[in-house]
């Protein structure tokens, strides 16, 4: 078994930083755990259950310039935007949680859908290595076990670390990229036996069943089911859930500048905003907040699996933690599963 001691981890981070590789990991900022670029290994803090933001911030940033335009009498000049420093940074995300890593697989499915590639995302992804740290515990909002993942699920990771009882890490290469990383920095890794820390997986949400939900959600008759308005009337449409979600990927393109010169920017958008789906004609197919909430739920448990063949919800629970009015997606999973049970008569 390959292992990495905590000491060697620090030396490895120093070596990465010395090579001008951007290292992103969980740190404490203003008393809050967040994923952020670090400048020294001692900043890393793996003690939190889950950081506030998801690692999508580093692959699909909230705002980025995609091109620059200049309008002259002779025509329109368009140039590709260059990231700060000329190129995207080589990045190691160290200590990502497995749910976050899995979310990046889902984002990749969206940004490569039917051959329509998003070069900005893919370039960032190609330059990023995800070193995941498996969880040993969850909190009251975690529910990865209810969506087919686990505290040590390898999906989306290049390397998977597990905590050992003596404060070190066991290392498992998941992808070729991970193997290459191990080989490139072999001096910090060693072979040896380790005892892993016991894992307490978050409890599976009772009565929730992703397959059953998919069947029920596929039936257009259930679009206007009363469960939606019953559950989501309290939603204020603030969109916080989409901003912290590892798999929410909607964005808007906007031109900023003067009539003659400016940037075209790609900014996060949210299906919870009331004009998100509005048509130019003035018609809004999702005029009610409960319909917008339904859309988000269906995106996670119907559109993602059927259209992108990927997990829409990775069970990180951030949307529950940030919700201002206490909307709980897990509660809705129970309710929808119950609706599915009622619809299909028992055999």
């Amino acid at each position, binding site marked *: 078994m390959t292992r990495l001691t905590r000491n060697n981890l620090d030396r490895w981070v120093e070596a990465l930083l010395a090579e001008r590789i951007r290292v992103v990991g969980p740190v404490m*900022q*203003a*008393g*809050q755990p*967040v994923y*952020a670029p670090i400048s020294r290994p001692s900043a890393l803090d793996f003690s939190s259950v889950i950081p*506030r*933001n998801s690692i999508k*911030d*580093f692959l699909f*940033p*909230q*705002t*980025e*310039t995609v091109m620059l335009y200049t309008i002259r009498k002779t025509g329109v000049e368009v140039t590709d935007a260059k*990231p*700060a420093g000329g190129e995207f940074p080589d990045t190691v995300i160290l200590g990502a949680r497995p749910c976050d890593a899995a979310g990046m697989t889902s984002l990749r499915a969206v940004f490569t859908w039917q051959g329509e590639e998003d070069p900005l995302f893919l370039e960032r992804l190609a330059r990023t290595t995800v070193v995941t740290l498996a969880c040993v515990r969850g*909190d*009251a*909002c975690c529910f990865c076990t209810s969506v087919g993942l686990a505290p040590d699920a390898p999906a989306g990771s290049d390397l998977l670390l597990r905590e050992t009882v003596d404060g070190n890490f066991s290392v498992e290469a998941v992808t070729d990229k991970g193997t290459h990383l191990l080989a490139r920095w072999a001096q910090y890794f060693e072979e040896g036996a380790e005892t892993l820390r016991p894992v307490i997986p978050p409890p599976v949400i009772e009565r929730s069943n992703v397959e059953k939900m998919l069947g029920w959600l596929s039936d257009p008759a259930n679009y206007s089911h009363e469960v939606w*308005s019953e559950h*989501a*009337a*309290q*939603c*204020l*449409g*603030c*969109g*916080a859930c989409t*901003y912290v979600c590892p798999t929410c990927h909607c964005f*808007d393109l*906007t*031109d*900023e500048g*003067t009539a003659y010169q400016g*940037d075209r*920017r790609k*900014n996060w958008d*949210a299906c919870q*905003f*009331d*004009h998100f789906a509005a048509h130019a004609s003035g018609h809004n197919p999702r*005029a*009610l*907040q*409960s319909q917008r909430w339904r859309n988000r739920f269906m995106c996670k448990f119907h559109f993602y699996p059927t259209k992108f063949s990927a997990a829409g919800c990775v069970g990180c629970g951030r949307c*529950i*933690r*940030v*919700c*201002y*009015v*206490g*909307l*709980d997606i*897990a*509660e809705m999973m129970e309710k929808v599963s119950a609706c599915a049970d009622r619809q299909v008569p028992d055999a």
Partner: protein
Amino acid sequence: MAKWEPKIVAFVCNWCTYAGADLAGVTRTQYRPNVRIVRVPCTGRVDAQFIIKAFESGADGVLVSGCHPGDCHYISGNLHAKRRWIFFKGLTDFLGIEPERIQYAWVSASEANKWARMVDAVTETVRGLGPFTRYHALRQAASEQNGTTMIWSEAWLPGIPDGVPLPEEAAFVPLLREKARELLERGEVKVVIGYGWARRQRRVVPVFITKPDDVARLVFNPLCVNNLAVYLPRKQQDVAKMGKPAIVAKGCDIKTIVVLLQEEQIARDGVVILGVSCSGVVYRQELWQGKLAPDLLSPKCAGCDVKTPHVADCIIGEPAPSAPEPPGPSEAQRQIEALDRKSPAERWEFWKDHFERCIKCYACSQVCPLCYCDRCITEKNNPQWVETSAHPQGNFSWNVVRAIHLAGRCTYCGECDRACPVNIPLNLLNRKLGMVSEESFGYRSGYDEKAHPPMVVFHPDDKENFIR
């Protein structure tokens, strides 16, 4: 490099100042060529956003000028404008924009000379201040920004940890449930908007009771901090579709309802207000430790004068014993006064640092019961008044709009502060404008549903000391 010349944008009304400037031209009166004139029908048309846009476009100073009071072609447009300027000046001073950069004046069609001398004076004042690099740096920072750095606020784990005892319900809760049952059974209302326990988490959430048998879900305790008035305006169509509501409201929530009534967003007979006596609520539920300690209290509770509701269809619970007024100014007032004592440059830095963190989630506007526009200015993109990117320039513009749109209306429920994921002290701006409203117009919002909000009326004697 060419010598720097100040760029001044002048918004002038068609009927007086534009004619005055024209007369200056006709009579060949010479004045500085630094001014770019934008003609508007009336100074009443000059939105605060125009001034922000001018700075975004590279202006170093802005001049707004129209007819003298009493001379308005539209009778009172300039008097409305005057009120708006009093608020806007209060805001821009508080944000640290040097007062000399935005100047206001009355210039009539015959005052060619006044116009010329004023443009000279404004140009030289701005020249003395130098280029408005502080503002223009926002654009520079904007073009370099790709991605954001988030610093999140404390609100995170939504539930109260297991083992911490939950608060006791208020003694009047059975009465509240009884009243709710009565209203629903008699069909007087179709839904009761109130507080109830979440089903999976240990926290209080808004609940919508539509069946008399469900009234047992209603609770009231110190965790009931949310301002439920947000569910009353038409924007919340899901709730509107349920039918006539009754709402469980604390005195502070009723202040918001009063503004909604004033602004005709709801009719007085369109809602049953179940006013509840309140002796304080927590700011963040997840910090509950078993009792209502002073440091857990919401800032809105400081100096509360509506512990017993002031406008209601029925008041439930004993009138709260009138609490002694806290000695001295509240924490928010102290912060505002401390900021007021600083220099414009220091205030600018203070707000710039805060606004830089803004991630443009617009949660502040979504949770605000008084932000009910069907289409927010941020959604208008032809032209794009507020840049949607989360970068310093767009953030500054957004925060100015939000504050000015709530001027004289905000009742300081503080939901914007609580919702802000990056901890911007948004309510300080609203409170500052509330102080302007009180000082200039003697108006406090949220008390009298018959009164007119300060931005929709004017008085010929409105006092100011900054219009040339």
